[in-house]
């Protein structure tokens, strides 16, 4: 098969209406019989499945062009309608023209000078591509035209035509039949059409009244053969048989000279069938149904909607060279690496063009065709594709020369695009460097979970292999994760240490003293090959290093940095400073604020000064170091971590008691009528607000109290300090109490008559009766508390479930509205029509992704 070389590029697409003469040219069959197959199961000639209309069975040849299933795109047929009908999709246009022109002479109801004036106006709007102007002109013109009472040319008295939806028109209380409309339209001169905004070059109004119906090729309405051997036809074919049947009946009746009423009824029926053929969702018309009562999917339905042609087939593309698998974490690979299972690597290929320089290497791949890495196919210089097998290897090896294309398997160091849906931002698709690993899952470094919003509870992700050199280069220099560390949303590092590695650097910089062997293992973890710093402490003849000395080894040697942060002084975490001087960490703890995800300050500073490559390297090394530290120390949590010292336990009871007292006061005030309503609120609402505030306050007091008394040296609290685990409030909810369960900013106030549950007295306003939980998770809730807790829990689930589609639609609309905006070469922001949106992006032209958190920090 000879491949045709495409030498043209589409420059523009013009739109217009198909004319009857065009239909005649396109049509290869004039369909007259409603039967599809004859008794032997062969398609009937001049039927809807006429073999001239295209092929849908493999092996057959097209009767018109001789092509096979893959080469013949199908051919159109036509139906000669016995009486004309109106094209439903253009019904509004028909209506507009009927109202804008004279039924006698067919001229547009404008005087000659006005015609020239309007033609010029439309011309101008069209030449400037000002669609909005065209629309405005048309709507203004048509509203004024419909009230013209007298034709300026033939002086006929005019009354506006009425449209009885969906398809019938009336003039002076008499029905206007499609053939009359057609006659009317034919009288309208081209010049008049241009004066009302239409383009006579591509559109004539009489074309909207059909007397020739274009029958689509079989290829777009293929019939399916069921397992039983039964044929099942496409919805369009069903609809077309209806059309042909009614059309033939109408013809017979006309020829037989049937009474007018019968002919007109059939005519309307024909109109109905053709209407539903084009659009089966016209309001006021019952949709045509299948035998199974299912509404037919006809032409309009094929185009519109999420599963329609535009969004499903045209704007949505399917791709090859991709893989999908479950993901799992591997903290030992670099953040920009992707662990690809061997099975995937063997299946995926990259088409590599052979050159002088890579030929020997490609030959080894070809030789190794059973093993890994190997090549699967070659394409010769004259575009012949050959499979590599034991038999073909010798000839291929002999013949291969620069210019051949070798499809080789994926190897370490290739660049791929990795993606997790929903792809809400560009960080959901990033370039990774392939690292082939055993196993069956994709492995990613857990640090990159943030940007993909991934976890490992069964998430699956997709990998795409760029094929061309350009694509690979782009993936490497733009898409690669290292270049995406700074999110364009706010210009800070989105990736940072999490979990074990964060806890590791936290402990390391907090208080650790390390022996030589410990230091060696830590330094080895991030492949340090310089000299060790001098030991900071010598204790009983033993040399000991401080953790922050080791931490400093990773930092760039000339880094100066200072920020507020945690410090560890006299056995306590206090707010102090985090100071780095000349690449040496002098004081402070490397916690989430400094090195964590979503804008770690230290990482941000390093990025500002040294750029993406260094940040990426620092993150990798800190990750390795942190993990190594975590391996040195044990990390475990015990239920007793939640215990509050016996001496302090009364405090919780005190707080609860206090809450009861305070709320009692509010309730008493309420009963006495002492509550002054807040502006815009009733007394009851004010009371509820007071109660809620009182009760919420008790939780805050409790949380502060727990933060003070909880055992400081437990891993639970330490991980809270490091920022790698829960916050202190979550600990308080476990060891203290849960507090008021608020639903939509109110206490729970429904259920039974004047009470939430039958366990309470009616009109009980107390905290417990409206969702106050006075136990923590550690102790456990009582049944009633659990019930209230479940109410709130369910509500938040509901909220999430309803929010997701709403925000999804919002984002779709935003993207659609903004997708064409780009920065032009002159620094302006323009849309696809090249009109200016901003003279300079953001006023200062600063790219958020390369800024200092959306600003320019002059102190760097």
């Amino acid at each position, binding site marked *: 098969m000879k491949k045709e*070389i495409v*030498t043209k*590029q589409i*420059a*523009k*697409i*013009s*739109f217009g209406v198909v004319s009857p003469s065009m239909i005649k040219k396109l049509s290869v069959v004039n369909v007259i019989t409603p039967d599809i197959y004859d008794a032997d199961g062969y398609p009937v000639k001049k039927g809807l499945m006429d073999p001239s209309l295209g092929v849908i069975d493999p092996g057959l040849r097209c009767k018109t062009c001789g092509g096979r299933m893959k080469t013949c795109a199908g051919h159109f047929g036509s139906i000669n309608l016995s009486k004309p009908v109106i094209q439903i999709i253009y019904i509004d*246009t028909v209506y507009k023209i009927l109202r804008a022109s004279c039924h006698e002479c067919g001229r547009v109801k404008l005087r000659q000078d006005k015609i020239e004036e309007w033609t010029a106006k439309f011309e101008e709007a069209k030449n400037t591509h000002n669609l909005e102007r065209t629309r405005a002109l048309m709507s203004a013109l048509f509203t004024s035209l419909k009230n013209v009472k007298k034709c300026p040319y033939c002086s006929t008295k005019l009354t506006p035509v009425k449209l009885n939806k969906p398809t019938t028109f009336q003039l002076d209380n008499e029905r206007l039949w499609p053939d009359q409309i057609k006659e009317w339209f034919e009288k309208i001169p081209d010049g008049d059409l241009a004066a009302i905004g*239409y*383009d006579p070059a*591509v*559109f004539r109004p009489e074309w909207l009244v059909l007397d020739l119906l274009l029958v689509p090729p079989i290829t777009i309405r293929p019939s399916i053969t069921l397992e039983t051997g039964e044929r099942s036809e496409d919805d369009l074919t069903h609809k077309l048989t209806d059309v042909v049947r009614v059309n033939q009946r109408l013809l017979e009746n006309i020829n037989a000279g049937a009474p007018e009423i019968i002919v007109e009824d059939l005519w309307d029926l024909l109109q109905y069938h053709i209407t539903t053929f084009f*659009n089966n969702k016209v309001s006021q018309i019952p949709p045509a149904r299948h035998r199974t009562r299912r509404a037919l999917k006809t032409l309009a339905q094929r*185009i*519109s909607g999420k599963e329609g042609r*535009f*969004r499903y087939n045209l*704007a949505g593309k399917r791709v090859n060279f991709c893989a999908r698998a479950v993901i799992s974490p591997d903290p030992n690979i670099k953040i920009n690496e992707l662990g690809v299972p061997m099975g995937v690597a063997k299946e995926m290929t990259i088409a590599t063009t052979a050159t002088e320089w890579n030929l020997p290497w490609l030959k080894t791949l070809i030789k190794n065709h059973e093993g890994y890495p190997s090549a699967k196919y070659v394409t010769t210089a004259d575009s012949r594709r050959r499979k590599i097998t034991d038999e073909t290897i010798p000839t291929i090896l002999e013949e291969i020369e620069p210019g051949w294309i070798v499809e080789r398997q994926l190897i370490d160091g290739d660049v791929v695009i990795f993606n997790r849906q929903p792809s*809400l*931002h560009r960080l959901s698709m990033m370039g990774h460097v392939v690292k082939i690993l055993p196993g069956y899952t994709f492995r990613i470094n857990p640090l990159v979970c943030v940007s993909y919003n991934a976890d490992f509870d069964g998430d699956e992700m997709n990998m795409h292999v760029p094929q061309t050199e350009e694509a690979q280069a782009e993936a490497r220099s733009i898409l690669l994760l290292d270049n995406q560390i700074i999110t*364009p*949303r*706010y*210009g800070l590092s989105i990736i940072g240490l999490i979990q074990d590695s964060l806890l590791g650097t936290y402990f390391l910089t907090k208080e650790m003293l390390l022996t030589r062997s410990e230091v060696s293992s830590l330094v080895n973890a991030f492949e340090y090959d310089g000299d060790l710093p001098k030991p900071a402490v010598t204790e009983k003849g033993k040399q000991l290093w401080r953790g922050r000395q080791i931490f400093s080894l990773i930092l760039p040697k000339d880094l100066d940095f200072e920020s507020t942060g945690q410090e560890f002084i006299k056995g306590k975490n206090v707010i102090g400073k985090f100071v780095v001087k000349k690449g040496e960490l002098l004081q402070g703890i490397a916690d989430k604020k400094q090195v964590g995800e979503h804008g770690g300050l230290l990482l941000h500073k390093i990025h500002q000064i040294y750029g993406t490559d260094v940040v990426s390297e620092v993150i990798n090394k800190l990750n390795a170091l942190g993990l190594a530290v975590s391996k040195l120390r044990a990390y475990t949590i015990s239920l007793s971590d939640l215990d509050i010292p016996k001496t302090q336990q009364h405090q919780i009871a005190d707080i609860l008691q206090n809450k009861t007292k305070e709320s009692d006061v509010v309730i008493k005030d309420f009963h006495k009528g002492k509550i002054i309503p*807040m*502006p*815009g*609120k009733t007394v009851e609402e004010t009371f509820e607000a007071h109660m809620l505030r009182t009760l919420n306050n008790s939780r805050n007091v409790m949380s502060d109290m727990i933060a003070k008394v909880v055992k400081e040296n437990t891993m639970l609290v330490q991980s809270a300090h490091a920022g790698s685990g829960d916050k202190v409030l979550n600990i308080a909810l476990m060891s203290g109490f849960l507090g008021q369960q608020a639903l939509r900013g109110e206490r729970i106030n429904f259920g039974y008559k004047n009470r939430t549950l039958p366990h309470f007295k009616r009109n009980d306003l107390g905290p417990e009766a409206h969702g106050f939980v006075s136990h923590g998770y550690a102790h456990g809730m009582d049944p009633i508390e659990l019930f209230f807790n479940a109410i709130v829990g369910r509500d938040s689930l509901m*909220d999430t479930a309803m*929010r*997701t589609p*709403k925000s*999804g639609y*919002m984002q779709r*609309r*935003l*993207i*659609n*509205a*903004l*997708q*064409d*905006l*780009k*920065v032009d070469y*002159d*620094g302006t*922001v323009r*849309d*696809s*029509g*090249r009109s200016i949106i901003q*003279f300079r*992006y953001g*006023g200062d032209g*600063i790219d*958020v992704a390369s800024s200092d958190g959306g600003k*320019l920090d*002059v102190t760097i």
Partner: protein
Amino acid sequence: MSQYKEWNQMDLPDKIVSDIKLNKLNPAQKKKVEERFQKMQVSPGEAIGVISAQSLGEPGTQMTMRTFHFAGVAELNVTLGLPRIIEILDARKEPKTPMMNIMLKAPHNKTFAAADKIANKIKQVSLETIASEFVSDLVNFKLIVKLNPELCKKHSISVKTIVENLSKQLKGTDVKAIGNNIHLTSVKDIKKLYKLKEKIRSLYVSGIKGVTHSLAVRKQDEYVVQTYGSNLKDTQEIPEVDENNVTTNHFYEVAKTYGIEAVAELIIREIMMILDREGLNVDIRHVMLVADTMCKSGELLGITRHGITSEKQSVLARASFEIPLRHLVEASVIGEEDHLTSVVENIMINQPVPIGTGLPDLVVQMKKSALKTKKTKTAPKKSAAKTKPTASKGSKK
């Protein structure tokens, strides 16, 4: 490349210049700042539209759906979070919760009492609120409204203004004041009288139309009035109001009084305010781009199928969003052409998208002799020169 050079030499923004002064940088440091500023400039072709859309859309999943109570004493419901953002982007004619924040002129903003007095003045008062009784006199076909003098005084309304305002709204009805009562005489029809009685309850008497609640609230060291319901024009006419410091969240009112530039500014403020409240960090540039896009044509367009999308140049871009049939019909009768300048159409026909790395075109000038032979055999794969970037049409000034 002359235009590119010009662009590169943009002066430092005022903020950075003042920062330099503030930090007392030496010339070397200043030069470094200038260099960094140049480095930070966006690259031509950058698909900033998509980036902005994603930057606003992605945090949308984390936003709340609740309506919130105003912080502080004022317990008014405010639409916030995702519903409010959607409302702003839709550019609805009426916000769900229209509100104003009114600053007062000097003596009135010092004490709560003074501010409260004006707050009461601003609030719309209907007849119902100041009347103590509605009596129908069936003998004379009259309605008698007994006013509550205390309430009248509280809202500082005289009987005369009530009569004036009522007679303006009730045409064909005779309105007369007798003492503290208002007599309404109408047609001699019991049914109509009954209807009238229902109607007059909610009639506007004084204050500002549309403002249903108003409160004096302390903000820092002065008292301001916050209202529920918005009517910018009438509010500014009140003498005690500092007319230059009245804000509303009603875009169309702002558009009418101050013009589209103010609306763009307001959109930015409103969206940033919501994002701040949710604790979401989104750079202001993204919001600015959205606001400028919504206001680009001189009137406010929503990010909906009727708004921005329907104004797009490309037929296919419009059709691929929503209601494709309508756009195809329109395109075919007026003979539109799609020049494939935006993103979707190029995706549809499998061509590189004219954005980002797909933007530059390689223009090769071939020798005439070479062109002749080439043309017959292998024409160049891409018809080269597309639209070349036009010269810079406008700099910041």
